[in-house]
């Protein structure tokens, strides 16, 4: 799947239809501006040629820029046939061409494609039209023509109305006054700030909530490292006890062996051998200090040896005779 393709969502669908079968739209789909103006119920969003058409709006719902080029749009349900090969599917769909900067959508931006069947009119034109007064499903496929990115079932819409996504998986029929081509379907406003201003004018709730969160984070860290520190200390103590116990056992064994005279001295006289063992035992029982306190205990004492003035060289003086 193309990077970010799953963030493209169908956003609004509008089917061009004229109430009362008026003459605003001729058989070829052409609507003159004068005729369109005379038809108050028709919400016409015109293309680059000034032609009104049905349209499909797609939104980049992410917070980063993605390009919708090479994706496919269709209303043909045959593309759902999983046995169909990718080239076969492509024939049933309308390709969004590459090479047009308009297909690159910044965060939360929208693009509108005209379903007028005239791909020769440019990138924004699809090779199919939307049926007025009938239900249909719009499918948005990824560039491989296999992965379905989004789809929406559109029931027969009243003239001049659109079908718009209000929230995730929540679609509404919007009347003529609320059709919003190339614009958000819901007016964005910073409700959070407004809400805080209204409900917490003195900042007490904010203070309590934020301090609660700050304390929670640091209390959790405190608890973790308190327990972990205790466990580390305990483990170190246990290791020390184990080491000392092993030394004791070895030492006792050696002493016992020395007393019984069972140790082979390999040519060394017993007196020397016992002295070596005695020295080793002394080191084990007190002479060694493998755990340092980390505290420096050197007390500085002031003597003439440490006197700064004694350490300084006398500044060379020019002899008066010179």
């Amino acid at each position: 799947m193309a990077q970010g393709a799953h963030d493209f969502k169908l956003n609004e669908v509008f089917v061009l239809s004229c109430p009362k079968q008026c003459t605003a739209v001729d058989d070829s789909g052409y609507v003159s501006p004068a005729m369109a103006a005379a038809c108050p119920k028709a919400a016409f969003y015109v293309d680059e040629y000034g032609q009104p058409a049905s349209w499909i709006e797609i939104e980049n719902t992410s917070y980063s820029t993605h390009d919708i080029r090479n994706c496919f749009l269709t209303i043909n349900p045959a593309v759902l046939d999983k046995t169909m090969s990718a080239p076969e599917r492509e024939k049933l769909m309308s390709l969004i061409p590459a090479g047009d900067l308009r297909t690159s959508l910044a965060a939360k931006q929208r693009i509108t494609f005209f379903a007028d069947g005239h791909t020769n009119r440019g990138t924004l034109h699809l090779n199919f039209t939307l049926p007025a007064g009938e239900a249909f499903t719009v499918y948005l496929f990824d560039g491989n023509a296999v992965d379905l990115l989004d789809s929406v079932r559109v029931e027969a819409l009243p003239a001049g109305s659109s079908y718009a996504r209000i929230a995730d998986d929540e679609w509404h029929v919007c009347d003529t006054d609320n059709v919003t081509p190339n614009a958000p379907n819901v007016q964005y406003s910073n409700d959070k700030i407004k809400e805080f201003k209204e409900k917490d004018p003195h900042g007490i709730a904010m203070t309590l909530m934020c301090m609660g969160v700050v304390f929670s984070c640091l209390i959790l860290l405190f608890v973790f490292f308190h327990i972990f520190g205790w466990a580390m200390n305990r483990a170190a103590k246990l290791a020390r006890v184990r080491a000392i116990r092993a030394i004791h056992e070895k030492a006792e064994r050696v002493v016992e062996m020395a007393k019984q005279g069972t140790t082979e001295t390999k040519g060394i006289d017993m007196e020397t051998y016992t002295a070596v063992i005695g020295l080793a035992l002394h080191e084990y029982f007190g002479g060694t200090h493998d755990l340092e306190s980390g505290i420096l205990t050197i007390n500085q004492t002031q003597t003439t040896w440490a006197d700064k003035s004694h350490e300084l060289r006398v500044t060379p003086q020019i002899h008066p005779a010179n």
Partner: protein
Amino acid sequence: MMLLESVSTMDFIGTKLVDFLTYTGFANVEWANIIMIAVGAFFIWLAIKKDFEPLLLIPIGLGIILGNIPFKDAGLEIGLYEDNSVLNIFYQGVRLGWYPPLVFLGIGAMTDFSALIANPKLMLIGAAAQFGIFGAYMVALALGFEPNQAAGIAIIGGADGPTAIFLSSKLSPNLMGAIAVCAYSYMALVPVIQPGIMKLLTTKAQRQIKMKPARQVSQTEKMLFPIVGLLITTFIVPSGLPLLGMLFFGNLLKESTKTTRLAKTAGSALNDIVVMLLGLTVGCSTQASEFLTWNTIFIFIIGACAFVVATASGVIFVHIMNLFLPKGQKINPLIGNAGVSAVPMAARISQNEGLKADPHNYLLMHAMGPNVAGVIGSAVAAGVLLGFLS
């Protein structure tokens, strides 16, 4: 003929010179520019003569002067707010908020969290000092600022320049220059602001409390701290990810013992480069027209309140903790001020005040605990505010 030509040349030169003069600073200067240049010079004087945070105040001071050099707005692409100017390109790091996380990377790579790990209860002091932020938030609301602007201003109480810039760039970009200058100014003035409050809230006997030396911390604990810290804080406050992520990343570089080169670069060269650009562009953003407003004066007043509340709440919180701690494990309340995240300046104040009360009482390492906890606390607070108001 020659005479006519020379007269016309002289006319041309005269016209061009007059035209040139309209481009000079002298032709475009206003009183506000002169005031701001004087402010910039004062900052530089404070940094050099008084040694107040020179690494910050010299770039900011020169930036203020640079940003207030008057010039004719003729599309020369030289001003900070003109697209494609060199200063504007540097300013993007402030505007889009990617300098602060880089500074946090450096802070993480330079910070030793041992004091905190050895005595984890000191973390709570770092949390308590964040009351400064919310005290300031309430004052800002009372002065009529919108909640998002109040939050941007209040973060000054965290005493953390990068966090203040990060949050204000997101919540109240129009006040960011004033907020940043205010935050850094008060951070530089920590040695002036804090000692008085600390003395006021402590008795001589309390100031003489000697704390037990901290236990030795194993390398495993040091390595684990950034990972656990990152997981806990960002799971609770994902909006603090840019700051907390980089802080703990920098610390892991340091403590892993396998990436010493990276930690060294993050904590020295990279950090220095970012601090230079950050300081300079923040200073530049204080153009007189944007800076000399009532809002700026309010921001400085609120900032002062924030620092006072933060310091006081840290010290008072230590008193409260001492009520529950057994004798022999009491905490010297002089380390309470270090809960603000001005690292290591606030910890140094604790040390100095401790030495004044007892020349044999060394509090620096104890104070580093709440000090680094303050860095985490202020980043978390910024994340929460961002989450609530953006």
